[in-house]
């Protein structure tokens, strides 16, 4: 059995699970959801026809129809394009997003031997250091916690810096697509893409700096697990960083939407009028750019959810059950007491998985709301917003947060 758990805990398995179970379905459904939601916002019905026989599901199968259409479309490669880079660009656009998903904790650590029973977080927190003196307890704990599946592919201390580093590479996809297309409009679109990415990358990184200071870590799994303050349980919604970093949240969300290259920041593409970097692409290659954009929406939602909205945490659901009004135990640093309703570990894990999915879906929905509410920025307005507003505010946010952290919050 432990071989099976070792395979399940292998990063490749988790990556395939995450991509197949969460990212691709959500990104595919977003292509339909975007059109349907924008229709509802504009008093229309939107696509509701695609069906397999009598199964209609409000047209949710439109993404299948779209995929089939894109596969069977002619894959036209114009003369004079740089063939190698032309083929490489869509992959460069989509691959970094897939890689960046590695750092997202999409669920709690699962202890397969405790699935049926209530987890004892004190035992877990003190295992194996403090209980070695009692061989009986040590043996029991070893049986319970010997196998674990951590629902995060790549746990590293510099997690969110890794995300910034990798996702910046996605920009090369757009820029190279514009250059390789041998088309002046595509080239200009690629240039706009680079300038926008460069401007907003800075503000984006610095706007998260306040969150790092408050949480005391760059590791998204740590931020999700512990929240802002060590005095409260990580499952307490008031311990999530939206309350501690409201300015950082607004700034990061704005910059992240700019990073996804969607309206109101869609000047690299501007499909109907100003013509973007993928003007020469057709068929499935264009589909990859399209899909990369939707996967980036899911990714931005996942990052915002992880850093600011407690990730997989369900409000007031600790590892051993629902608890309201508890306190933090000095020894094990987990919450105890309060009004408590115990739940088996399996149910807790299932609820936390669902919480992550629901939060990500809601944040995707909110991004679509913004995209269909605001008109496009002009290029100069975009630069003004990025350099003159977001960046100074982000810097001020870092300074104020650092001062508050230094003067008011106890060092622990």
């Amino acid at each position, binding site marked *: 059995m432990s071989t099976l758990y070792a395979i399940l805990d292998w990063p490749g398995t988790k990556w395939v699970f995450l991509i197949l179970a969460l990212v691709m379905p959500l990104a595919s459904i977003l292509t339909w959801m975007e059109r349907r939601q924008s229709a*509802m916002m*504009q*008093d229309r*019905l939107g696509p509701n026809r695609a069906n397999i026989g009598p199964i209609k599901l409000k047209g949710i199968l439109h993404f299948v129809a779209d995929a089939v259409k894109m596969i069977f479309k002619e894959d036209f490669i114009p003369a004079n394009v740089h063939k190698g880079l032309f083929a490489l660009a869509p992959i460069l656009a989509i691959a970094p997003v897939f890689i960046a998903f590695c750092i997202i904790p999409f669920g709690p650590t699962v202890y397969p031997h405790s699935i049926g029973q209530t987890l004892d977080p004190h035992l877990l927190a003190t295992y194996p250091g403090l209980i070695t003196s009692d061989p009986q307890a040590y043996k029991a704990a070893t049986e319970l916690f010997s196998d674990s599946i951590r629902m995060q592919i790549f746990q590293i201390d510099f997690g969110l810096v890794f995300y910034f580093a990798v996702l910046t590479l996605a920009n090369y996809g757009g820029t190279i697509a514009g250059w390789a297309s041998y088309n002046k409009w595509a080239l200009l679109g690629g240039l706009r893409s680079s300038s926008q990415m460069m401007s907003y990358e800075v503000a984006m990184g610095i706007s998260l700096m306040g969150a790092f200071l408050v949480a005391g870590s760059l590791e998204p799994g740590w931020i999700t697990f512990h929240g802002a303050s060590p005095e409260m349980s990580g499952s307490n919604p008031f311990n999530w960083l939206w309350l501690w970093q409201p300015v950082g949240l607004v700034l990061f969300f704005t910059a992240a939407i700019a990073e996804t290259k969607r309206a109101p920041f869609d000047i690299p593409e501007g499909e109907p009028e100003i013509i973007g970097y993928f003007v020469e692409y057709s068929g499935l290659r264009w589909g990859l750019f399209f899909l990369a954009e939707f996967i980036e929406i899911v990714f931005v939602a996942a990052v915002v959810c992880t850093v600011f909205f407690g990730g997989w945490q369900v409000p007031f659901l600790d590892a051993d059950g629902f608890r309201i009004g508890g306190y933090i135990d000095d020894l094990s640093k987990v919450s105890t007491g309060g009004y408590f309703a115990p739940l088996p570990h399996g149910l807790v894990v299932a609820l936390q998985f669902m919480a992550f999915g629901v939060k990500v879906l809601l944040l995707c929905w909110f991004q679509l*709301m*913004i995209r269909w*509410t*605001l008109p496009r920025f002009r290029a100069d307005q975009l630069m*003004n917003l990025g350099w003159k*507003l977001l960046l100074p505010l982000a810097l001020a946010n870092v300074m104020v947060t650092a001062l508050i952290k230094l003067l008011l919050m106890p060092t622990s």
Partner: protein
Amino acid sequence: MDHAHSTTSEAPEGPHVLAVSDRHPRSRTIQVVRPQAQETTYLAATAKGLGITLKHFARNFFLPLKKLSKRNMAGAPVHDRWKNEIETVQYPEEKVVYPERYRGLHRLMLRDDGAVRCVACMCCPTVCPAHCITIVPEEAGDNTIEKRPAIFEIDELRCVVCGLCVEACPCDAIRMDTGEHAKPVEDRANAIETKESMLARGIRSTAVQGGEGPGWHAGAKSDGNH
């Protein structure tokens, strides 16, 4: 000159002039209106816009559809408190009833005995600007009626739906009041309406058959004498 300048500076739509140069009266110092802080932060406007779109989305997402009769048919949209605001007509299942004078697919009218009313006078193919009507006449085999169409075809792909054929027809034999529009076809040949298909849509005309009878000429003269 000075008077003229002072009037331009007082014009409400022009920029506010702070000073005018003595040597070059057209060189002026004007007050530049810069966007206020609340306009450049975009936050308030974004929140307001999100409120509007959210209201529409929530209403259309949670409330049921209005009945078709309350959506497009009555003209002005009907506000129903417990229904959403979606105006889309789902075409093949739902159809909007067209106005009475809507020019739809052609129909050939029938005589009282069910025969075709057309006498193949060739007025409609002559007047047709799109040359979409083909008539091949034949003898009717009846002394009171000289001709009838052996073939009467209208290419609905060429038809510009101008209605001139209906205007030109002297015996109310062709009409466009079916209220149907041309159906989608997979083959261009299927878009050609034949005599049979148009007769299948035909109805009996209330106009007097054969005009006003053999004595109409004399009757018209006597009318003139009155």
